């Protein structure tokens, strides 16, 4: 019996490990049958794609975009880089030059490049651009139908290299629809879509590519996509910059943050889109080959996006400016950046991201105005701005982080930001009192005598950093006597945000170009004409559902001036002042994305030292990275 039992024990231990032996030496997490040296592996932050075989990006809500489709295979007229760009932030991609408007901004004329080909050998021409507009206007259920239908009266293609858009009303920013920030209206292949009966139900598999890469293979379960460099890559718009380094690109779902870190430590994931700050610190410590945007602290790439506490200004209590300001004055931003980013954040008191060229255009010039800015609480007058908060954060971090923390005030201002609102619970109380609230014990009651409940919605582990910021703010509000609650919405945040089903949430309604001072990218959609009624879905970006006559005026003025007109900055500063007075959102900080790049196989990634592109893998711009990457050995 002893022999039998021993045998059984050995067997039971061996059975599970049996298939281990033949291939345990081989790397598990990389695509098979492709030389690793020719392959760049990037994270697809969308994770596992449920309808993997859907490549029709022009259909609503369909398929993956960050799987390489918009980075490697699609193209449109222009790109604005959030950083410096390969050849300036502005890049004429399919277009040969900048857009030309008539004096009234009712017509936009585009001249296209010639000699560009779709991957099936058909030449790209103005007919494709015209079809992109016509097909989507005709099919109202397509992704860009509404914006095109609202703006375009007609589109003409007098010859193969010219497209003329006739607009329904003056719009000096119409070209931005065809300008890639994160993405844009991508040009579709007319010769493919012409044969399709219902373009909204067409899966576009396998996609015909206009970029330098074409689809090689993909996982029907949606975990990986592999793209291959086109033989005729020179016939794509990227060809102008030389041959892309990687012959293959793999966009993969590497799993939750810890698995991403493990994968990069094993050199099975070259570019991580984003991880928690702790994961970034770990990589920096353990993997000598890992490089982030900044060589040291705070590592992350600041996206031209402004995380903020976004109020639902249609909410009974939050429609009152005093209440919103009171909630802002209860926040201690130092604790929030510690909780969210472990201090690795760039704060911003004003409603413009402190990134790209914005600090020069907005933050620094407005410092004096902010210092003088005064609130009248009814009982007292306070100057809430504290210009030393950025420095305070740096000082707070120095004991634990040591030399990584800069001491040069200019560098501190760049990496940690300038000032923010000083925590002032007393003033906040006075504001609430003026709004008719009263305090019972340590509990604020609304004018109708109920506890003042504020549910702060966060996305949970889909955006850990924002969730952490939200929990900290809730704690601070609670300590100040608000019945604040955290509300983890996970993926339903998007729908609830659109439906206005929230009191407040951590997110962003301010997104800018970064490389260009123009603010219309987000602000145009803030016009009161787009604000939905309570309970009805709100169209893009003005999630706070906030309207103000002054804001409408600013927006309308911007529509009438040229994209590069210096007057735009003036209007932008007016916007900042209005936002500061009204506080419909509480601006917090830049969205620092911890994109970690492993230099074991590839070198030449974009970094703060060589800021030619945004490294973040789901941005359309990151295609510029491919032409600069060289094998490490």
């Amino acid at each position, binding site marked *: 019996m002893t022999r039998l039992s021993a045998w059984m024990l050995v067997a039971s231990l061996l059975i599970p490990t049996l298939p281990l032996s033949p291939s345990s030496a081989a790397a598990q997490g990389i695509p098979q049958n492709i030389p690793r040296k020719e392959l760049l592996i990037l994270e697809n932050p969308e994770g596992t794609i449920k309808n993997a075989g859907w490549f029709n990006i022009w259909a609503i809500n369909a398929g993956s975009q960050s799987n390489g489709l918009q980075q490697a295979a699609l193209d449109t007229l222009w790109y604005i880089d959030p950083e410096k760009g390969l050849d300036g932030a502005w890049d004429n991609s399919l277009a040969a030059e900048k857009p030309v408007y008539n004096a009234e901004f009712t017509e936009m004329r585009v001249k296209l490049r010639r000699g560009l080909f779709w991957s099936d050998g058909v030449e790209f021409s103005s007919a494709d651009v015209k079809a992109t507009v016509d097909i989507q206007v005709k099919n109202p259920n397509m992704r860009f139908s509404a914006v095109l239908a609202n703006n375009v009266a007609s589109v003409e293609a007098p010859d193969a290299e010219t497209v003329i858009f006739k607009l329904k009303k003056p719009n000096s920013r119409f070209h931005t629809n065809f300008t890639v920030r994160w993405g844009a209206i991508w040009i579709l292949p007319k010769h493919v879509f012409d044969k399709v009966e219902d373009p909204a139900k067409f899966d576009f598999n396998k996609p015909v590519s206009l970029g330098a890469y074409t689809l090689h293979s993909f996982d029907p379960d949606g975990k990986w996509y592999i793209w291959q460099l086109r033989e005729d890559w020179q016939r794509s718009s990227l060809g102008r910059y030389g041959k892309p380094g990687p012959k293959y690109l793999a966009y993969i779902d590497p799993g*939750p*943050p*810890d698995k991403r*870190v*493990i994968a990069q430590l094993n050199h099975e994931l070259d570019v991580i889109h984003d*991880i*928690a700050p*702790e*994961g970034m*610190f*770990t990589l920096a410590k353990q993997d000598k080959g890992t490089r982030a945007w900044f060589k040291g602290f705070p590592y992350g790439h600041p996206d031209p996006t402004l995380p903020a506490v976004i109020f639902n200004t249609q909410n009974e209590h939050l429609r009152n400016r005093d209440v919103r300001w009171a909630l802002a004055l209860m926040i201690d931003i130092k*604790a929030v950046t*510690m*909780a969210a980013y*472990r201090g690795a954040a760039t704060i911003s008191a004003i409603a413009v991201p402190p990134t790209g060229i914005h600090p020069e255009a907005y933050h620094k010039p407005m410092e004096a105005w902010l210092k003088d800015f005064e609130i009248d609480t009814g009982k007292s007058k306070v100057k809430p701005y504290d210009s030393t908060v950025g420095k305070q954060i740096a000082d707070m971090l120095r004991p634990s982080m040591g030399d990584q923390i800069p001491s040069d005030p200019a560098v501190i201002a760049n990496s940690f930001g300038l000032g923010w609102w000083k925590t002032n619970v007393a003033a906040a109380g006075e504001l609430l009192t003026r709004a008719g609230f009263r305090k019972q014990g340590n509990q604020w009651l609304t004018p109708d005598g109920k506890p003042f409940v504020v*549910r702060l919605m966060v996305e*949970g*582990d889909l955006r*850990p950093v924002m*969730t*952490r910021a939200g*929990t*900290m703010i*809730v*704690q601070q509000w609670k300590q100040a006597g608000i019945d604040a*609650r*955290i*509300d*983890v*919405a*996970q993926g*339903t945040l998007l729908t609830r945000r659109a439906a206005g089903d929230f009191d407040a949430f951590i997110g962003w309604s301010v997104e800018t170009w970064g490389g260009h001072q123009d603010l219309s990218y987000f602000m145009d959609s803030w016009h009161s004409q787009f604000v939905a009624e309570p309970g009805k879905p709100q169209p893009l970006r003005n999630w706070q559902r906030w309207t103000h006559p002054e804001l409408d005026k600013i927006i309308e003025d911007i529509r009438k001036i040229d994209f590069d007109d210096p007057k735009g900055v003036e209007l932008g500063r007016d916007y900042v002042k209005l936002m500061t007075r009204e506080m419909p959102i509480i601006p917090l900080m830049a969205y620092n994305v911890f994109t970690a790049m492993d230099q074991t196989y590839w070198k030449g990634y974009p970094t703060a030292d060589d800021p030619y592109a945004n490294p973040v893998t789901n941005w359309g711009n990151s295609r510029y990275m491919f032409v600069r990457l060289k094998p490490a050995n």
Partner: protein
Amino acid sequence: MLAILRDLLRYNLEFRIGLALVAIVLVMAGLSFVSPYPAGDVFVVPPDIPPSITHWLGTTSRGQDVFWQLTLAIRNTLGFGIMVAVLSRVIAIVVGLLAGYSGGWIDRVLMSINDTFIIIPLFPILILFYFVLRDTMSTPLLATIMACLGWAYDARLIRSIALSLKTREFTQTSIFSGMKTHEILAREHLPYVLPIVFSTTMNNMNWSIGIEVTLAVLGFTDINTPTIGGMIYWANQHTALVAGIWWWIAFPVALVAMTFVGLFLLAVSMNEYIDPRSRLARMGGGR
């Protein structure tokens, strides 16, 4: 009952280990009442300190002391388990006794429903509940839902005991003496059923705590209330594992494993004591 406990304590190793584990867990939970830190607050101590004299189990990346956080977490987790156990016990006893005693079509219908609840995969249903209730899904509500789903195994057990009780003489006597059904069930049968109820309580708590941990880790519960699952959830949010903050995950996992093994051992040893068959087997087969 006390004599049984004394005997178990004296002679049964499994019971002793189980009791010791559960006692440690209970002491931990009790300590939460004297926690020097406010329960839900973050950044009250310096973050990321490994276990040391000042912070026995280290501190989290959220600036919480793991030890004190753990005391509260285990209290909430145990409280949840007890809540589910008590509620589901009530359902199980009522259904089990009623089915066993009534017999006939009542028995058949009840047991058919009962078997259904045993077969149905409950986790997707819980997720469905979470999905439609979202942030209105509070801890008591979750406990109630789980109690409504998790009574079936025990109801079946109780029914089988009730069936055997029914044929005993004293039941007949009670019937002849004019006692009503609910009186017979409550006064005559319940005492026989209670020991087995007690032992299944442990298993039921294991089940409900396990599900709570899982739901919490997936972010499907109220993350404001510190629980064991909630601690692991936050640790995952801070990639504690790869960041080397192992104590943030290791101690909650260890404590909850202690809870599980402790409760399980209690259940097993009680069961063995209660079940005459296995007791007989130990005494020597009877033949």
